[in-house]
């Protein structure tokens, strides 16, 4: 364990700097949310979020000075999430009108059995 034990004071300073950077980035992302970038809103917000997440992973979760295998596992998690997202989006784009399953038809559909009985004979008009 001792191989990655740096000077404790230097480490504490790094953690404080990381926290301050994270708080500044939070302020930036909140401020940016009041500006309308149109379609770029999502991109701006998620880019800042990813920078923040990287800071947390590298410094607070020690990935920067840790054994590479831990970083590899973390990257693999996000890689598979990316694959999942990619194939789901491909599938989504090829469908029409995908619904959340439990909210299906709230449309007032006429009761199928009663419908023909109430509208009887006045059919032949233009034939």
């Amino acid at each position, binding site marked *: 364990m001792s191989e990655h034990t740096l000077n404790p004071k230097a480490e504490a300073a790094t953690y404080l700097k990381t926290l301050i950077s994270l708080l500044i980035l939070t302020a930036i992302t909140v401020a940016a949310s009041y500006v309308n970038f149109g379609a770029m809103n999502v991109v701006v917000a998620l880019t800042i979020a990813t920078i923040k997440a990287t800071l947390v992973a590298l410094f607070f979760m020690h990935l920067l000075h840790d054994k590479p295998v831990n970083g590899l596992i973390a990257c693999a998690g996000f890689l598979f999430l990316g694959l999942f997202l990619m194939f789901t989006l491909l599938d989504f784009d090829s469908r029409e009108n995908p619904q959340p399953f439990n909210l299906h038809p*709230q449309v007032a559909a006429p009761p199928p059995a009663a419908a023909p009985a109430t509208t009887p004979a006045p059919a032949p008009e233009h034939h």
Partner: protein
Amino acid sequence: MSTSTVDLQQDPHGHGDGGHGHDDPHHQHHFTNMEQQFDTSKIGMWLFLATEVLLFGGLFVGFGLMQARFPQQFKEAHEHLQRPLGALNTVVLLISSWTMVMGVLSARTNQRKKLVVYLLLTIFCACIFLGVKYFEYSHKYEEGLLPGHYYSHHGDKIPTVDGANGYATFFSFYFMMTGLHGIHILVGIILLAWIAVRGNRGEFNSNYYTPVDLVGLYWHLVDLIWIYLFPLYYLIT
């Protein structure tokens, strides 16, 4: 630091480590030395964290798809979330991550009192987070901004797109994701309390602080997930 293969050759019983951690009561005999034991635990924790990323990832993907499906209704539903409260909770969680990492550093440098204080501060921040969340949830409940068919904000006139209510879908995801995250915070509080009690007993030192480190990793992951939840729910309109 000699390599583990050399250690095994020198000492088939797996206790040879040049005096490092030789007498440690936490040293389990199937590990070559304390460092290998620590690294092994850590790999296990990272594997668990990877599954956590995938657990929340599924929900994030679902949220993204439904946002693409009901852009207008999701945009309007976003307006019901209070940005200052979300920002406050973000700041609280970031600070708690910092107190946590300082706690790990304290454990590693044999500062027992500091460790306990930092852990208690982390728990305090977690409680503030949950308090704000409770305030937000009760507000949503009063306004009928609820998941699925419990949604009653628009009374009887439910605005639908192709027969589906996008607002209710939004709040289904909102409660599912922030709720699951909240459960993680609750679990975190329990773990932090457990670590604080053990730390107070003086069970951790520079040679053995694995539980502190692993709970720290878990706590940072919970923070990391919130870092994505916050902009997606509160900021993007």
